[in-house]
């Protein structure tokens, strides 16, 4: 097993101000065995490189904007094929098409409020994927009004509030996302 721990200090050269100090640790191990059950020879240097990569990966996230996966919950209505078409569009990255499908579905007559809430919530999810957080927030709030019993909607409000904060921080950091 290799254990590595590195402390990073970033100093502003103009002001000598300590901007950040962070310590990261990582461990890497090899448990590979031969066919007879004996351990295979271990290359300690490759374990060192593995630990170093883990640490630098963590460190770079601290100082440079990075991509992350966001998992969104989409509500399904078994009797509505339009919802499945919208999901298909979202999975292909075509959020605008998904939103138009959902908006057309919403215009159907005699729809109960629970189904309306589901569709509006789903439009909100598509807007999150589009990066239009203010509209997404208004959709989630409307879904809550229509169906206050559904626990997904308040969670979506919290999620979008976090995304709004992140977007503001990115703007402060001069990071422009599509």
């Amino acid at each position, binding site marked *: 097993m290799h254990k590595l721990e590195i402390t990073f200090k*970033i*100093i*502003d*050269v103009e002001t000598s101000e300590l901007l950040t100090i962070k310590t990261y640790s990582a461990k890497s191990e090899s448990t590979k065995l031969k066919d007879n059950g004996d351990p295979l020879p271990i290359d300690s240097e490759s374990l060192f490189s593995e630990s170093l990569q883990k640490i630098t990966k963590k460190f770079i996230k601290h100082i440079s904007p990075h991509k992350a996966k966001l998992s969104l919950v989409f509500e399904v209505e078994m009797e509505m094929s339009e919802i499945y078409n919208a999901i298909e569009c979202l999975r292909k990255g075509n959020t605008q098409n998904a939103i138009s499908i959902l908006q057309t579905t919403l215009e159907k007559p005699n729809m109960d409020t629970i189904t309306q809430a589901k569709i509006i919530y789903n439009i909100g*999810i598509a807007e999150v*994927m589009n990066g239009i957080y203010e509209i997404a927030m208004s959709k989630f709030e409307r879904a809550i009004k229509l169906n206050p019993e559904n626990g997904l909607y308040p969670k979506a409000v919290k999620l979008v509030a976090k995304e709004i904060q*992140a977007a503001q921080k990115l703007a402060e*950091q001069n990071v422009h996302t599509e």
Partner: protein
Amino acid sequence: MNHFVLISAVIILVSCATTNINTTVVRPTEINLSNRNRVVVAEITPALDSLKYQKHSVQIANQLSAILLETNRFEVIDQEHLNSLLAEHKLKLSGMVGNESITQLGNITGATVLLYSYIDRDEYSETKTQGNKWIDKNGYEH
């Protein structure tokens, strides 16, 4: 009764049906270095004074420079260029502890930030564990 429970369960499941969709987002950094993008990676003191640890220090510095460049947000002043600049001014990076020296470093190199790293731990160990004994088809114990 059983049918009723089953039907109710199906209704609940159908009414709660959801699916997950993944999307990629950009996350901001913890510290804002947007206006400070010219970096000097300081030489790293080895954990111990041996060839192996000296090699590790160089590897760490190189890996840091490479990963900083990969982001396309930082310009890294390479060690060779830095050493020649310091030699020109008869300076040593390891001796730069005071505010004035660091400012001087900025003036000489045009750097905006200095990245100092310390190896707190660099340990390798092997542990042997033994599983339960077993007997092969010939009756030998392993």
